[in-house]
């Protein structure tokens, strides 16, 4: 059983009344914890007075493992960080390494990276929206969202042979060029996806029960979002207009015309809806990137298998589906990283859970956790 009572104790409430407080253990294996997350919840009746996340159940020591591998061998490890958005960690790691080793990337590779990462954003947001909706009982939304995600996964499978751990973005480029007919399938997906998004918007966000469950729940103020280092849709849902693609532009993003959707209330509704609107923008970027992409090499030829950058450190980051994903690399002149640190947006966003959950019902805790969209591969690393 995954929800069990840890203890009962009597506490004196602010108004002088004595209540029995339950301490309940939720997880670590629980259908609505999006992985393996344990939350120790203190309850007054059904109201959460304190929620304390206990993480680390998926800790594999990836930062330590990286110190014992060559620079190229680390790329598959980064797949296992955010496993519903592997392309991002691939890219963030490669950017940090390319900066450290001074590797130039061909333009076609930059476009291919943008294309796969925008598709990954859609796939990841579909996962987030679908599972968060299922947590609050809207199981139909789950099916609609996973249908869309599956089409992208199929395209990725055609591109690089893998459905989850792509190992696609490599130092100096990408592993494969697009196969014949792939670009046309991707464009056709964009057209059908827009219609699906509009349908999902009506189905889920137009539903009165879903609105009741999401609106006004887990409100995060813009000031708190900044102070707590929140990023991605969690920060933008609170009206913090911060997106690395716009505000610290990398790769070829300055060449695209797109908007950064933001919310205004900072509740679960705004966070989820920002994700839906981001999918429209990703479609826009995808179409522009495909139109602008020119034939050419898709990786730098002649890179040695054993890269040994000169001693120093470098940090680079990208906007993943969860926020600012950064990789900090320290080199000591040997072919192995001396230190690799992953600045995980899911980890920083999850730190908000105790603050957001306090004062809400136990059933809202699940909705709030879903709206933060944690992926525990990345939280625990």
């Amino acid at each position: 059983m995954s929800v069990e009572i840890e203890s009962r104790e009597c506490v004196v409430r602010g108004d002088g009344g004595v209540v029995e407080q339950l301490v309940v253990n939720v997880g670590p294996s629980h259908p609505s914890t999006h992985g393996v997350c344990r939350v120790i919840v203190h309850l007054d009746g059904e109201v959460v007075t304190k929620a304390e996340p206990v993480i680390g159940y998926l800790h594999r020591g990836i930062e330590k493992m990286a110190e014992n591998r060559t620079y190229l061998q680390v790329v598959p490890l980064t797949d296992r960080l955010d496993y519903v958005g592997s392309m991002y960690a691939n890219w963030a790691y490669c950017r940090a390494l390319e900066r450290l080793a001074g590797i130039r990337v061909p333009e076609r590779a930059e476009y291919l990276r943008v294309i796969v990462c925008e598709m990954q954003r859609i796939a990841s947001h579909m996962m987030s929206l679908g599972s968060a909706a299922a947590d609050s009982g809207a199981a139909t939304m789950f099916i609609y969202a996973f249908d869309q995600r599956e089409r992208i996964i199929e395209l990725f499978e055609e591109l690089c042979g893998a459905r989850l751990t792509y190992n696609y973005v490599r130092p100096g480029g990408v592993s494969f060029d697009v196969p014949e007919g792939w670009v046309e399938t991707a464009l056709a997906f964009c057209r059908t996806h827009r219609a699906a998004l509009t349908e999902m918007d009506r189905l889920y966000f137009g539903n009165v029960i879903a609105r009741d469950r999401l609106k006004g729940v887990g409100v995060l103020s813009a000031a708190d979002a900044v102070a707590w280092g929140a990023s991605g849709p969690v920060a933008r849902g609170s009206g913090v207009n911060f997106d690395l693609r716009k505000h610290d532009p990398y790769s070829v993003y300055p060449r695209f015309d797109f908007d950064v959707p933001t919310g205004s209330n900072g509740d679960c509704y705004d966070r989820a809806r920002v994700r839906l609107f981001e999918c429209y923008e990703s479609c826009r970027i995808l179409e522009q990137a495909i139109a602008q992409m020119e034939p050419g090499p898709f990786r730098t030829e002649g890179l040695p298998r054993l890269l040994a950058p000169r001693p120093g450190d470098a940090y680079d980051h990208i906007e993943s589906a969860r926020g600012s994903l950064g990789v900090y690399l320290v080199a000591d002149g040997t072919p192995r990283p001396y230190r690799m640190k992953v600045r995980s947006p899911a980890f920083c966003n999850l730190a908000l859970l105790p603050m957001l959950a306090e004062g809400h019902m136990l059933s809202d805790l699940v909705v709030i956790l879903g709206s933060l969209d944690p992926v525990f591969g990345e939280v625990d690393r």
Partner: protein
Amino acid sequence: MNIPELRDHLCAIHPDLCPLFSIEFGDGVLSVPCEKLYDAAADLRELGFDRLGMVTAVDHGTEFEMVYRLHSRSMSAAIFLKCGVSRDEPRVRSLVDLWPAALWQEREAYDMFGIEFEGHPDLRRILLPEGWEGFPLRKDYCDDRVVRRPDYI
């Protein structure tokens, strides 16, 4: 704001921090002595660096190096704040009261490196279970269960 502009801006407002500023791999880096870390961080926060992006440490063998990455939305600039910490007594002041973002990230640095953050309200392990022995990201950490890959070179 690019890095030279950031340096000029910093030097105009805080001349004492100016000699500590350097540029490494295209990033602005402010290396301060450990006891001045908190004050330097508070100055930078005053200057407009409102986000604490990353807290981590590196074991350089002789000493630990704390690495903080701060970001300013208003200036659209980022800066690294670094300080060396003695290995014998790894102790540094917590930045939690400047940025609550440090709450979990400092716990992680404690968990992995054993660095004590003075003034941290809840300093305990976060990723590893309670009762774990040693600090895994230290270079002298030994665990018999770890299989070391053979050297290829």
